[in-house]
């Protein structure tokens, strides 16, 4: 067991909360991460800023720009992760980002530095299973989970390839599109999660386009985890360094909805 697998074994779906590292500044991010935990997030997804985030919509693009404007470097991202690990030893943190910042100093450097910072897992948007050699072996050797993405276009023939080498959890991108746009129809999410869970024992977390407690609860009825990103990032954009309290309150509303989701079914 790892702290990441524990986060999905609490008897209720996990809330996975994303923010961009260094937004609005490297110094302000730790308090925002603390607010995510205080509000009830089970897994922290820390975005590594990138100049060319081609899978992200306007909200996370703007967060990246704010982070760069504050001078965020890769060293700051790891410092944020490391200090989080000291403050919250049992809350898993996963890094999400793009291939070039992760591989520029070599995959072994990245894996070792992430391990030193206490990072539990890594999600890399643009390294599909076909190019696993660029990152996967180094992460596995360092004991870091490589979290793979499945999408509406990942068909049954391809799914085994996605699952081969995946660990931690499986992230189902419920919409063919970029972050922060529309939510998928509930029926399509239910069908997809059932299909994925039949193929893997990994927990299945669902993300993209989820922003209201009602939406989170609906997804929580079928999935092992609910990923929320752009909506949190928008709060950070709106409140800047004062974001922790509104972020905590928002996360608490999602956590409560997720906690009660399956009780509604039982009742």
């Amino acid at each position, binding site marked *: 067991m790892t702290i990441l697998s524990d986060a999905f074994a609490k008897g209720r779906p996990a809330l996975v909360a994303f923010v961009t590292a260094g937004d609005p500044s490297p110094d302000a991010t730790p308090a925002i991460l603390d607010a995510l935990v205080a509000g009830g997030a089970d897994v922290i997804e820390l975005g590594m800023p*990138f*100049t*060319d*985030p*081609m*899978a992200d*919509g306007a909200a996370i*693009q703007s967060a990246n720009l704010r982070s*760069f404007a504050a001078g965020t*470097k*890769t060293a700051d991202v790891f410092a944020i992760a490391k200090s989080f690990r000291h403050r919250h030893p049992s809350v898993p943190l996963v890094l999400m980002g*793009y*291939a*070039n*910042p*992760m*591989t*520029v*100093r070599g995959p072994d450097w990245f894996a070792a530095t992430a391990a030193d910072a206490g990072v539990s897992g890594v999600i890399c*948007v*643009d*390294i*599909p299973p*076909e*190019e696993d050699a*660029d990152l996967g072996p180094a992460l596995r050797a360092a004991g870091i989970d490589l979290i*793979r*993405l*499945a*999408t*509406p*276009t*990942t*068909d049954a023939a*391809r799914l085994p390839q*996605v699952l081969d080498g995946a660990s931690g959890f499986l992230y189902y*991108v419920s919409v*063919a*599109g*970029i972050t922060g*746009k529309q939510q998928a129809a509930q029926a399509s999410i239910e069908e997809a999660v059932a299909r994925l869970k039949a193929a893997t024992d990994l927990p299945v977390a669902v993300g993209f386009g989820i922003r209201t407690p009602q939406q989170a609860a609906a997804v929580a009825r079928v999935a092992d985890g609910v990923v929320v990103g752009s909506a949190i990032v928008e709060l950070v954009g709106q409140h800047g360094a004062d974001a922790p309290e509104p972020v905590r309150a928002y996360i608490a509303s999602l956590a409560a909805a997720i906690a009660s989701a399956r009780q509604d079914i039982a009742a």
Partner: protein
Amino acid sequence: MNAPNSFRTQPDDRGHFGDFGGRYVAETLMPLILELDTAYRAAKADPAFHAQFDDLLEHYVGRPSPLYYAERLTEALRESAPEGYGAQVWFKRDELNHTGAHKINNCIGQILLAMRMGKTRIIAETGAGQHGVATATVCARFGLPCVIYMGAKDIARQAPNVFRMKLLGAEVRPVTSGSASLKDAMNEGLRDWVANVHDTFYIIGTAAGPHPYPELVRDFQSVIGKEARAQMLSRINRLPDLLVAAIGGGSNAIGLFHPFLDDGDVMMLGVEAAGRGLDKEHAASLAGGAPGILHGNKTYLLQDEDGQITEAHSISAGLDYPGIGPEHSWLHSIGRVEYASATDTDALDAFQLLCRTEGIIPALEPSHAIAAVAKRAREMRQDQIILANLCGRGDKDIFTVAEALGVAI
């Protein structure tokens, strides 16, 4: 490294050119990339596809483009060359194609492929606007809706091409994110594609992006080199000593070079844009960059120590890209092709030189190649031959050139 038996067998079946290339895309796009690969293999093996492609190139694009001996330019360069030096300069006249550049060759091939795949909507990115115009042109020709992503900065400096695209019925969407130029337009193209995978075909304009794009763009552009090779043999019964082409992403260069790669006596020179100088702002990925991953492929990129992509600069919007096609990175790494660079100033000088000696107004992109030709010709004997690709005409650039020369028009 041992020389391979052929330099013309890349990429491997996973899309790798040595250490470069590959398929670095989000999972949503991966099944589409694989479907495109399957469709391209089938098209490549289908004589009917080639017949349709060749027919359109002949009767719609106006191919073959002429091979031209630039006699007055050759004489002008000899005036400042040592005795007995001053190579003959020949041009492959791809600026005479319909739409004024080599870009149309690739667009014809890709739209035929899109229709084979049953796609009903076309998107593309553009820098200078030449690829956008070529894409809008083939969309009008085949009646498909067309969305072009173009950096806001490029829209401002390439107004005539923006108007052309609109006349042709395309929707031009300004991109204001990032540096508001070509790389950001490509990001928006990828964002559109990932959200419209069911009906949309992305016509990438250069020999870069995820496999199989670098290969298929090269194959469609190789008509340049195939024609040039046959024309040289038929006109003077010999091959050139040196090929020269400008490089942004590198599609016109790979199109010229590829058919000659196994001709061991033919040297090749790719010319990157050195902008304000290699120690200042530039767009020379090989000279001033390092290998990395962007836009679906591993290749040389302009980037900082954290792997963040840095902004490119060139007076030529078509070369203003912080990467280069992966096959060029490979050809550079094995030494088969030499790569050099020319500054904005070098290109402006060469632009004017060609106007005055040959009565040809070149685009700013091939003006970089002409700058390198002017330098190399003086170092080569008079019986030697340089063949450069005149990949675009300069009508679109006259405003930029006027501004750079301090002329109000």
